[in-house]
């Protein structure tokens, strides 16, 4: 009697539990076991973030109110444009950017294809379930020699090309595998180093110029340098929602925790620098866009980044002194982006505007804050060559996202201690 009385309730309860279970599995597409793994994997990450958050002197983009006075160096012609030529062919490929060789005589373009590689093992933060990284693009890597105007495909499946210091080879990730392309033999070989097939493994792992690999050793493991002894900064735990930027020598590393997090309330976006001596310097809070646009100086002593505000700025942080310099402050909220250091670290090239309210233009500014020059109207993503005499830059394409051009420069002013060529 009692059983039959509660039977409808039990049936209803069973149905509710069943539907809730199905909804959970269907909605999240992850198992409870994986959730547990993920939570455990982020212990060190949470510890670093926690200690960083205890600092209350961090620069916070969400509350920053810039000074009302613009900071605009004197306009002066620093360089002449000798030549401006389009370099990317109209072959239908989507060239999105390039990496110069250390000698400056070649560059590797990255051109995503329509094909993609699925993420098989998620290492998203527990809060990211509503936005999932499901795949990354497969990309053509194409070698370009400006002097000869010749193109050579390296691979149809590569990412994050990194030149060796002697410019004789190019390391790149082919999905999970670290590959080495030899310039003289034009052949690619597998190095034996590998990243796991996770979001971090596929998106964050990157070669170092000496052939080592910065990557987790297994799913949900911290980032390590594989192939040699561990740097003093030790293993670094990151999630797929974090952004990682290595210094040119690979001995310092910027980690922007939460720069790719889709729910800002889970953790504030924090940017820190890991130094070779093991120290960690907190740098920015809630400055996701600044962190993503951050660039190391070639002498590895400074990082430059834009700050989007009512009066947008370009700032330079000196890692030796710990001092921050405001290099440029506009009197508008216009977008400042695409920062690129000159090889001698004396100048920064950058893009002002985004063709919405303000037309794009490429500017140069001396890093001592004395002079600036509008190099050209239009254009974006300037990329200074190692010889200092060229700037690769893009213009919006008509049949694709970007077309790429190469500027040849000559100094307009005599730089002290240097002879004009």
């Amino acid at each position, binding site marked *: 009697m009692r059983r039959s009385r509660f039977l409808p309730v039990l049936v209803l309860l069973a149905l509710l539990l069943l539907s809730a279970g199905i909804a959970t599995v269907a909605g999240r597409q992850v198992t409870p076991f994986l959730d547990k793994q993920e939570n455990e994997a982020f212990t060190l990450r949470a510890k670093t973030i926690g200690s960083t958050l205890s600092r209350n002197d961090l620069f916070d983009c969400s509350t920053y109110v810039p000074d009302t006075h613009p900071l605009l160096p004197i306009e002066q012609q620093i360089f002449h444009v000798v030549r401006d030529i389009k370099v990317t062919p109209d072959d239908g490929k989507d060239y999105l950017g390039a990496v110069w060789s250390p000698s400056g005589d070649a560059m590797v373009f990255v051109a995503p294809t329509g094909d993609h590689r699925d993420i098989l093992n998620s290492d998203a933060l527990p809060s990211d379930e509503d936005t999932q990284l499901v795949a990354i*693009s497969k990309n053509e890597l194409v070698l370009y020699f400006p002097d000869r105007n010749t193109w050579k495909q390296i691979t149809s499946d590569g990412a994050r090309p990194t030149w060796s210091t002697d410019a004789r080879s190019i390391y790149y990730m082919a999905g999970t595998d670290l590959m080495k392309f030899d310039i003289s033999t034009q052949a690619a070989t597998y190095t034996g180093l590998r990243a796991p097939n996770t979001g971090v493994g596929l998106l964050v792992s990157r070669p170092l110029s000496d052939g080592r690999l910065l990557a987790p050793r297994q799913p949900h493991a911290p980032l390590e340098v594989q192939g040699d002894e561990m740097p003093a900064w030790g293993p670094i735990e990151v999630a797929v929602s974090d952004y990682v930027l290595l210094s040119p020598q690979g001995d310092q590393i910027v980690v922007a925790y939460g720069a790719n997090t889709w729910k800002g309330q889970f953790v504030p976006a924090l940017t820190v620098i890991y130094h070779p001596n093991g120290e960690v310097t907190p740098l920015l809070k809630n400055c996701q866009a600044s962190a993503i646009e951050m660039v190391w100086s070639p002498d590895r002593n400074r990082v430059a980044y834009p700050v989007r505000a009512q009066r947008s700025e370009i700032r330079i942080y000196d890692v030796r002194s710990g001092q921050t310099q405001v290099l440029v402050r506009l009197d508008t909220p216009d977008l400042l982006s695409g920062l690129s250091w000159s090889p001698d670290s004396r100048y920064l090239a950058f893009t002002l505007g985004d063709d919405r309210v303000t037309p794009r233009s490429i500017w140069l500014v001396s890093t001592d804050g004395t002079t600036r020059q509008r190099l050209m109207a239009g254009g974006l993503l300037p990329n200074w060559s190692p010889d200092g005499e060229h700037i690769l830059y893009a213009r919006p394409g008509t049949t694709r996202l970007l077309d790429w051009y190469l500027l040849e420069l000559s100094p307009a002013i005599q730089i002290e201690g240097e002879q004009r060529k």
Partner: protein
Amino acid sequence: MLAALGLTLLLALMWSSTANALIPSYKHRHRYINPDYTYSYYETGKEDYIKNTLPNEWYSTWDADTLQAGAVIIRSGVYWRVNRSVLGSPWPNNNCYKGGSGSTLYYRTVPTSRGGQEQWLPNSSQSSTNSAIDATYGYHAELVSPSATPRPDNLVGLRYNPTIQNRTHNTTGDWLTRIRYAYLNQGDPYDPNHECSQIDDQTSTNPFYPNY
């Protein structure tokens, strides 16, 4: 053309929680350009997508009704794209920002700093824009008048540009009034020769997926 567009919109802008049952079930798919020049492919909840897009497209300091107009305009595009993907349309992304061949199932979101168009930026939601999105939850544009051409649903994928955005800001009234004003005012915001044009799909030979 503009008058017809405006009239259609006047008829079109209504809310229906029951129409087109496909809508609530699927996530928005898009590609995001990474700093290393590669693409990441994301699937995101529709409201999450709007929350990380609106503050990058409308000024988050604008008044609530302007932001609500922006939320509805972006949501209308999201619903349109999601349904077209689900329905297997040959133009699942409204032939806009679709990128290269073989990748048409994914909308392309690229920061303007990298030459892009609609800006979905990770972790960029703000309280003012989130409030506008929550306040208009579910509101989107639909075609109310019977269509002479067979359609899979009545969704209308609203487009916008700085002119449209400024018009939602430079008028008074509720968000619906502002959207009407934005599309009815002088000046044609659409270029029929542009791939993202509202009327571009009308030149298609397939009659089942007209854009408008």
